[in-house]
């Protein structure tokens, strides 16, 4: 591939081998976020979904149910409005809004700035509500501990096969709005079979964020990461003023 192209042209062609990962810059920033968070025992969840799956409702409910035992902060990614951030603050958690404009996903540098603004105290839980989109956000590591995918029974059972990269990138899948199952033609088993075909390691929870069904498993998952073991909890870290990456 290097010898042919301009063999007849006068100036010599200089080939430079790069082997440079295209998303290297984001990957490095995400690792810095991860280190910053881990040093403060802060657990970050990256919440992903298509628009309208009920992510914000899920977060509101999670904040109301866990807000007394955990210090919860939220980074809201939205293309234009700050409606979601206001809903989150009304539910009782500090929130910062990132408007991505035409951008279809959050990246690690946006999250770094948002962390700087939020300044969560050591031991907190941070939820990042990504832009509603099942394609682009799958590719961008933010430094989170887990990627959590929220789908609802008003979407098709073939979502996992249409958006396999997203289903593969996540470790947790919440199937939301199960209170609507009596009214929609949605086969839960078929959806879960498809999801596990794409990612056999997915942990799946069936929930209704509006009615409260099935949220115990999700909450335990959060607690397991946020409060790994009270006996082995780190000593109190002096809340350092070092700025986020």
């Amino acid at each position, binding site marked *: 591939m290097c010898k042919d*192209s301009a063999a007849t042209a006068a100036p010599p062609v200089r080939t*430079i081998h790069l*082997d*440079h990962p295209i998303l290297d810059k984001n990957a490095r920033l995400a690792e810095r976020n991860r280190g910053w968070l881990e040093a403060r025992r802060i657990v970050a969840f990256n919440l992903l979904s298509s628009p309208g799956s009920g992510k914000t409702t899920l977060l509101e409910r999670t904040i109301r149910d866990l807000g007394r035992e955990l210090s919860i902060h939220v980074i809201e990614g939205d293309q234009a409005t700050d409606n979601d951030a206001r809903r989150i603050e009304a539910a009782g958690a500090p929130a910062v809004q990132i408007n991505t404009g035409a951008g279809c996903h959050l990246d690690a540098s946006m999250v770094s700035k948002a962390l700087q603004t939020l300044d969560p105290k050591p031991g907190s839980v941070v939820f990042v509500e990504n832009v509603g989109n099942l394609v682009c956000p799958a590719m961008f590591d933010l430094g989170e501990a887990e990627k959590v995918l929220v789908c609802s029974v008003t979407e098709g059972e073939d979502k996992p096969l249409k958006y*396999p990269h997203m289903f593969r990138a996540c470790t947790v899948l919440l199937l939301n709005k199960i209170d609507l199952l009596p009214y929609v033609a949605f086969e839960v088993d078929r959806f879960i079979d498809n999801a596990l075909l794409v990612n056999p390691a997915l942990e799946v929870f069936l929930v209704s964020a509006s009615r409260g069904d099935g949220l115990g498993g999700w909450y335990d998952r959060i607690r397991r990461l946020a409060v790994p073991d009270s006996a082995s909890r780190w000593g109190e870290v002096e809340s350092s003023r070092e700025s986020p990456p």
Partner: protein
Amino acid sequence: MHELGITQEIVEIVIARAGGARIARIVLEVGKLSAVLPDAIRFCFDLCSEGTSAEGAVLEILEPPGRVRCRGCAVEFSLDRPFGRCVCGGTDLDWLGGEELSIKAMELA
């Protein structure tokens, strides 16, 4: 469409490495199982490189095929989409190739 951002990233990286020299050719590797569409990159490239030292560069995109190994029975096979089922029925697969997303090389004029 994440290909626009990805193409901007590609152009920034090659321009920085070229140190002002004009770039005649760029060789990318975009695996068949990656979530990136080569045609979309080609479409965005003219726009992103306009007015830079990468303008007019030939874009060569290699597309390594998807290759997996079944964790159940160790059989290796090809995939053309990012999931699949082994002949043994297993779906837990180790990805050996097809996720590449890198700039392999460039030629300076």
